Structure formats: structure tokens, C-alpha cells
């Protein structure tokens, strides 16, 4: 069971509380990955708060403090516009993607706001081509906890695979 959103902890979290939070985030990430991997892109914005921020950032830009993102959404409107464009207007060959999200760690908890990290790997499969690595990187997340439900206030995906193979269609 999650720590209540309405009981701010000034004290460091106990190991049991950390385990609870990690386990909740792992479950969240599994649902997030499943939604994207079955191609249900128009459900993707539902993982974010109304003011949720999403950024996909090349690691070399992050290292050099350059602000450009490969994808960026500020708020639900832009998240939905991105999802709609992928679902209905962009031209791309059909593809399977498969996420693996590992090493979830909670790095902070305050007033119902959780900061966390994870690693991600995404494989991509196109017709008549062998499966390839599309991206590997790290999530830098901020979650809002509302009762039992987590939502992303911010997800920054910082990818090592800076030489993108052709293009990234679905957001990591």
C-alpha cells in the first residue's frame, strides 16, 4: 500500500516505504510500456497530469546544457496533439516496439511528489527486417501521487543512442 499523498514526510523514508513506492512505479512503468507497445498511442497522455511535461533529450545535448528536445510536450494539449499526429497524420512504416524498463529507484518524496529514475531499452521491429535496438536511455521522472494512482508530472527521457536510426515515431 502506498504512503498517503496527504501525509507529507519530513523524515527519510523507511525501507518498507521505499519498497512500496518502487513497486508502485514499476507497476506504472509496466502499464505505460504496455500501452505504447500495443500501439495505443492515444492513451499515452492519460499517464500524465494536466500540466504534465514530456521531453526526449539526446544525452550529448543534456551534457552540453543545450536545451533542444527531440520531442517536447508542455501540458495535456501538446501531449494529445503529439498522440493525435502519430495516430492519424504522420506517415511511417508499421512497426512493433518493445520497452524494457529496469532499475527503478526512488530518489525523493515530498508532499505527494515522488522523484524517481529508471533505465529503458526499446527494441523496434519493421517488416522483413531483423529487430534492432531503437533507443536506450534513462527516465528522470517526477510523479504526482493522488490516492492510489500515480501520474507523471514530468518525464525526461535522456537517450544514449544519440545517432537515431532513421526516426523515432512513438515517444519512448
Amino acid at each position, binding site marked *: 500500500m502506498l504512503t498517503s499523498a496527504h501525509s507529507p514526510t519530513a523524515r527519510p523514508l523507511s525501507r518498507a516505504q521505499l519498497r512500496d513506492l518502487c513497486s508502485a512505479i514499476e507497476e506504472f512503468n509496466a502499464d505505460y510500456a504496455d500501452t505504447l507497445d500495443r500501439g495505443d498511442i492515444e492513451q499515452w497522455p492519460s499517464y500524465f497530469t494536466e500540466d504534465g511535461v514530456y521531453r526526449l533529450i539526446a544525452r*550529448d545535448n543534456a551534457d552540453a546544457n543545450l536545451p533542444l528536445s527531440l520531442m517536447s510536450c508542455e501540458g495535456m494539449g501538446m501531449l494529445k496533439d503529439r498522440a493525435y499526429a502519430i495516430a492519424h497524420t504522420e506517415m511511417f512504416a508499421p512497426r512493433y516496439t518493445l520497452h524494457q524498463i529496469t532499475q527503478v529507484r526512488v530518489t525523493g518524496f515530498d508532499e505527494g511528489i515522488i522523484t524517481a529514475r529508471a533505465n529503458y531499452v526499446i527494441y523496434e521491429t519493421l517488416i522483413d527486417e531483423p529487430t534492432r535496438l531503437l533507443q536506450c536511455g534513462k527516465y528522470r521522472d517526477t510523479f504526482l501521487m493522488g490516492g492510489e494512482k500515480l501520474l507523471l508530472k514530468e518525464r525526461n527521457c535522456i537517450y544514449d543512442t544519440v545517432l537515431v536510426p532513421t526516426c523515432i515515431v512513438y515517444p519512448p
Partner: protein
Amino acid sequence: MTNTSRFASSPAVNRAEEVSDLHWPDDPAAIPDWIYTDPRIYELEQRRIFQGRTWNYVALEAELPKPGDYIRSYIGATPIIVARDEHGKIHAFENRCAHRGAEFCKTYRGNTKLFICPYHQWTYDLSGALASVPFRRGVKGVGGMPADFKLEEHNLRGLNVTCRHGVVFASFRDDIESFEDYLGPDMLDQFDTVFDGRPLKLLGVHRNTMPGNWKLYQENLKDPYHATLLHTYLTTFGLFVAGNKTMILTDSKGRHSTLCNARPQGRPENDQSKKEIRSFHAAMKLADPRVLQLIPEKDSPWTSNAITIWPNLILLRQTNILGARQIVPMGANQFMLIWTTFGYADDDAAMEQHRLRQNNIFGPGGFIGIDDNEAIKFVQDGVTHSIPRHGVAPLGQDVEGPEVVITDRAIRSLYRHYREEMGL
């Protein structure tokens, strides 16, 4: 023997022997598949075009603002370094140690006083000149370099460098016209629309590989036909629509081009050309229209300029996006695209954020960028795997008004120039 002279030792190319089995079709609209697939053509392009009398985009000065700043870059497939020396002068030289050939610089960007090849510590200064070598006199009086070894005969292979309005171009050749003459007056005017002399601010760089021949990317930006059909974002929101005011110009040699478009206010719902465009989505509305907002900032009749500068640069000014795309060939069937995105140094925070937001349109994850990258892969898949035949670029006429938009004129003019440069 010196390796500072640029291509004095390059072997003479007997073109007739190398590709004598390849015949360009007689039809002036036809483009043969083999220019996209034949490795001999690719090798010939490296020598004739990228190592020939061309100015190649290699960097923005904003990427190396301080003495000692450097970036990795390319001319054609050749890895180079662009560096600013202690006096502020920009140099470009091969990223290949003069000793054993190591590609020694393995970081995208940085700041240094010296480049040291890690293999045997040959050390070069910021101009690419060899500054020192270890054990020059050997150990205990034996071994080491020959007595007549001269450092200055083993510099990194240097390039001819020119800068205009903060943009750095380089050439392997010294016997080349000025950059201004290379562009000609019309293209120079277009270039100056993007680079008006104001200092630039680098916003970031994206890179992607493309499973396609590099020339397909030049073609893509000389092809207004696809722009009005493939890209829903352009058509639906009126950024580039067949009914818009348009201008297509090429330089006198046909190698550079520009596609200019003036975006009307509002959505072009009543445009008669809409019924021809399957990608037009009448129901599509943005939940957050800021991504397409036009903030007037230029004294230009155009809201977009797509400029191709032969052989390796695409400049794109679209609404408030400013970007340079560098084409790096990686074999007949593959190239790398380096997207360098920038604003002006005097942008306020809101303008910078606006440009960053608008950049959702371009790049290898962009609303439009994805369409193009996929389409180019489709073409390469087709020409690589099918029985060879000639593609065609038949639309429009070679002599027509600059306002004609449904035309392949700029593609045909490029290939007339290409055949001349390649001797095909």
C-alpha cells in the same frame, strides 16, 4: 613528402574505365537507379564533388565561440575537426593522425589547447600543425625519428575555410571561387534571410542515420510536389500549400535552390487544391496551437525558406524554426543527417522557448521530419531491391515562372549539374 598540400597526391581518376557500363538515360526527366546504389558512383562522388571545387558546410561559429573550442564534423564521408585558435581564427583539418592514421578526436565538442593522438601522443595545435612527437631523439641516443624529420611536413591535412555571417564552410580545394560567388546573388540573398549577420545561439544538435542515398535528401528539399502531399502538418495548417504564394529559384548552375512559401492567415479551408490532397485532414485541430504560432521577426515576404546549398547543406527557416541540416554520406545506401538548431543570441527567454517548442515539427522525431525520413527509406528500399529501372521527375518545365509549384524543375537542374560535375 608533405601532407599539407591538399590533394596533390590524389590519383587521377579514369572515369571512363570505372563506370563505362553505366549509361544515363536519354529522357531528360529520367534518373537512373544506379546513382543511388552503385558503390563506384559513391566513390566517384567523394572525389569529384566533396573533395572537388565545392564549399561544404562544416559548423556554425556559435558552436565554437571561445578560443580552443572545437567540434567533430565531416566533409563528404571524411571526418574533420573544426577548431578556433587562440587568436579567434577558425581552422578545419582532417580527423586523422598524420602518423598511423588514427581518427583521434572522439568527442562531439570540447575545448582544448592541443590535440593529442592517444596512440603515440603525436600532438597538434589548434591549427592542425604538428607541435611535438615523443622520443624524437629516441632513448639513450638510439632510435627515434630520422635526423631530417621535420614536424611541419607532418601536419594534419588542412582545409580551405571561409565564414559568412557565423556559418563555417570548408573545401579541400584552394582553387575555388569565393563562397559568395559559389552561391550567386539570388542564393546569397536567401542565405542572408536565415543568417542576417546577427550572432546566433546554438539550441542543440540531433543526429540520425538514414538508410538511403544522400542525394535523396537534396532532392527532397527541391521537391515542392511532395511537400504539398506527404506532410499533413504543412497542408492542414497552411504552412506549405499548393495555393500559397510560392517561389522556386535555382542558381545559374542549377545546383543550389530555394523553395519559399508565404503562409496565409488562418486555415486554408476553401482552397480548391485541397480535394487533390489526401493528407489534408479537415477535422484536425490542435489542442495547443502554440507549436504553429508565427511570431513575426523577419523583414521577408516569406514564412518559410527551404534552401539547398550543394552539396551538403539544407537550411530551413520555417515559421520561427531556424536550422541547418548537414548531409554526411556513409556509403551508397546510407547517410547521416546532422540537424543543428539555433536561434539568435538576442532572443528573449520566451522566444527561445517558442523556437524549442516549434522544433517538434522537425528532426528525426518531428511531425514532418518523420514523414521525410520514412519516405526516403521507402525509396532506397525500392531502388535497392527491385529490378533496376529509371525513376522520373517529369513535372513542370525547365523554363517556367518561379511561382510554379507543382514541378520537378529544381531536381532536373540539379542532375544536369551533377552529370557535368561527375562526368557522367
